[in-house]
């Protein structure tokens, strides 16, 4: 049963992720991405990472995808013009990554049951997923957390600089 659920989510993720790059209409690509985000969230639930699943839907499906769609509409792409020169590079890169995956899997016995059930769900489920994340994030991982706010600040100001038509300056000067 657990394997079945894992392969359902994994299969849909691979399929929709392929569709994202294969579909010619960028809006369809974005919708395919939406389906993928939901299935990734499903995979997180099976791994007992409920908080991550909720975040996946709130941030990726809720905010980032909207941003993607806005950008698609902004560029007014009807159908994507494609460049096919990079097929060889892509194939080589894919081959390398595939080889790595095979190496990784070959270097240890494959246990599917351990893939769908996290090896240490007890820690998380004892106190609740969100709570344990909170405790770790605001003690051990405080440093990356505070740096994250600086990243958001740069992103915010960068977005204004790169997209705002300096209208206010021209008014004032």
């Amino acid at each position, binding site marked *: *049963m*657990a394997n079945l*659920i894992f392969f359902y989510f994994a299969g849909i993720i691979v399929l929709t992720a392929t569709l994202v790059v294969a579909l010619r209409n960028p*809006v369809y690509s974005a919708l395919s991405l939406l389906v993928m985000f939901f299935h990734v969230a499903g995979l997180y*639930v*099976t791994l*007992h990472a*409920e*908080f991550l699943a909720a*975040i996946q839907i*709130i*941030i990726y499906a*809720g*905010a*980032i995808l*909207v*941003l993607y769609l*806005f*950008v698609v*509409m*902004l*560029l*007014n792409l*009807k159908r994507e013009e494609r460049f096919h020169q990079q097929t060889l590079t892509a194939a080589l890169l894919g081959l390398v990554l595939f080889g790595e995956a095979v190496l990784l899997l070959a270097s240890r016995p494959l246990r599917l*049951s351990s893939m*769908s*059930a996290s090896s240490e*769900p*007890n820690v998380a*489920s004892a106190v*609740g997923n*969100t*709570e344990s*994340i*909170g*405790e770790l*994030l*605001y003690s051990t991982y*405080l440093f990356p*957390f*505070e740096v*994250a*706010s*600086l990243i*958001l*600040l740069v*992103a*915010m*100001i960068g*977005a*204004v600089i790169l*997209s*705002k*038509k300096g*209208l*206010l300056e021209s008014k004032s000067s």
Partner: protein
Amino acid sequence: MGNEPVPLNYLPIAIFAVIGAAFGIVSLLAGWLVRPHRPYRAKLLPYESGSPLFMDARVQFPMRYYIIAMLFVIFDIEIVFLFPWAVVFGKLGLLGLIEMGVFIAILVVGFWYAWKKGALEWE
């Protein structure tokens, strides 16, 4: 919540999702099976309250949508950090308040900047 491979208390959500998807698929499929197939041009056009079609639905969005969406994403991420913080706030105490205060203060600088530069105005 136990140690089962898939948390069972998410089963209602799964059932709900399946019913939701099935409702859409089944009703479209049923309509397609039952209705007669005699298309002509006017029938294939999008329905706009009976008036003739005057433009494509895919118009080019102005740039300001991008800034709004970008700011939305950033504040969405900020909210995400607030959830686990609120859950464990009792344990964190004063230090937790300071931690989050610094985080929010840094973002407020950016918000203030965007406000001053008129990124939030619709003009």
